[in-house]
């Protein structure tokens, strides 16, 4: 019974503390983080630079182990990276010795799927990120936005339980960003998937997330969580940007105050 309850959450983080290094040189990156992520959620994480956002993502991805506390996925401790949690990095880590197609196929190939299945998956996800016809291109021929879309398709190709993204659009220009955001929103809806996205852009968080978590300055603690549904409104209206409303500005203002307070304390 207890186990069933736990499985209600896809990710269940309890009292997570994360320390880099040892003794005098140690850095306390995260402290006392408790966070649950439900299936189908789009969770956005905001926080001042260096507060431990990436550390949180790396912990969920399985790249680093919690110093104390637990990080469970479907009730089981996360012991290392695996294909159930797809990761999209800040700068795309496409393999330049493989073309676009081979990059997208990498995950399914590693899992030993059949040729046909691999081909079907590749076609489907290249289509989903709007890169049909780019399969044979070398990765270094693509623009920044295209690269990030290939990276996304590559992560999606494994049908992971969730996708983790660390400031994936940070290096893109404003227009490309907006396009990427609606692409992600549509994919999230269409695939019924779970997203965990780190950003430093409050508008991005509010226009994509179903929940926005604001972290304090280092050591990162959860300051406040906001349940929002602007992304649903956008989907319903079939537009690709937020309809600015009283409610929107109220939330945005509150988040700005929270973060600015944190930064002021630092100085």
């Amino acid at each position, binding site marked *: 019974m207890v186990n069933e309850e736990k499985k209600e959450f896809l990710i269940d983080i309890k009292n997570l503390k994360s320390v880099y290094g040892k003794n005098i040189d140690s850095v306390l990156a995260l402290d006392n983080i408790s966070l649950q992520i439900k299936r189908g959620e789009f969770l956005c994480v905001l926080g*001042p*630079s*260096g507060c431990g956002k990436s550390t949180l993502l790396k912990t969920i*991805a*399985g*790249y680093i182990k919690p110093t104390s506390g637990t990080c469970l996925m479907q009730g089981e401790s996360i012991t*290392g*990276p*695996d*294909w159930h*949690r*797809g*990761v999209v*990095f800040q*700068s795309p*880590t496409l*393999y*330049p*010795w493989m073309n676009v197609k081979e990059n997208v196929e*990498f*995950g399914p190939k*590693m*899992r030993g799927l059949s040729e046909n299945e691999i081909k079907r998956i590749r076609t489907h996800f290249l289509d989903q990120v709007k890169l049909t016809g780019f399969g044979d291109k*070398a*990765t*270094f021929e693509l623009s920044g936005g295209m690269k990030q879309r290939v990276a996304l398709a*590559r*992560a999606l190709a*494994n049908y992971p339980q969730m996708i983790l993204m660390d400031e994936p659009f*940070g*290096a893109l220009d404003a227009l490309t960003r907006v396009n990427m955001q609606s692409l992600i929103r549509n994919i999230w809806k269409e695939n019924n998937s779970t997203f965990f996205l780190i950003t*430093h852009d*409050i508008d991005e968080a509010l226009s994509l997330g179903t929940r926005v978590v604001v972290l304090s300055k280092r050591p990162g603690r959860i300051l406040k969580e906001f349940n929002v549904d602007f992304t649903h409104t956008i989907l319903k209206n079939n537009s690709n940007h937020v309809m*600015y409303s*009283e409610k929107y*500005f109220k939330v*945005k*203002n509150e988040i*700005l*105050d929270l*973060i*600015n307070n944190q*930064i002021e304390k630092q100085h």
Partner: protein
Amino acid sequence: MDSKKELDIFKKSIKFYKLSFNKRNNQNNNSEKKIKKNKTERLLTIGTWIIILGTWYIITELKLFSTTLVPSPYKVLTTFITILKEGYNNVSLWMHLGASFQRLFIALVLAIVTAIPIGLLSGYFSKIKAIVDSVVEFYRPLPPLAYYTLLILWFGIDNKSKVTLLFLAGFAPIYLACVSAVRKINKDYILSAKSLGASQKSIFFKIVLPACLPEIFTGIRTAVGVSYTTLVSAEMVAATSGIGWMVLDASNFLKSNVIVVGILVMGFTGILIDYGLRYLEKKIVFWKGHV
């Protein structure tokens, strides 16, 4: 929407962005500075060679030195043609070159197939590095001819000692390139591969090895260069065949024209080998310089 509120938000946003961007401004601006060999530089290169050859021609034409010491370009050309036709000491030029290249080839293949795995493993596992590194670091700066004498004592004067010598000369640069390549590899390549479900073995062959290829190639090119010069010197110390031996033998009989032919042949084959390697590099490591 009342504009005062918007302005307020705008101000706060700016403040927030400024601060959150503080740590992010070290992104490298990928300005591809491709060094194009433009016309002036090409002309300078050609001009330099015209001057060198011209000076050579004039010196011999004016008979400033005896022809035994400085053969004329014409004499060198005819000697080259004769050697090409009749060989040197009744052995054809191709046999001499073949003998040299056989040694070089065997030694380099041995160096490549051993240095790459050992180097990559050394980069991967610091315990293996602890075993191999100091040995390589010790013998690498030694002049190869210093331990060549020892190798002759152990393996005799013919091929075995030379191949061993060239192997040792070629091993170090490839090994060192591999170690440094693994150390420099983008860690996110490996992490992303793990998150895509790759096994340790796949990561090694599909990610680490290709990621290291550009540096491995640089290492191989260095190795070929080092081995080639070592080969020629080794043949000049002790040999019974080979292009280096031809030069050595000619010097015993003061045949300076043959010496110059030998040197030119060595120079051109050296350039040709490097050219071939660069061509291969472009084909195999096509992404080099694009990442």
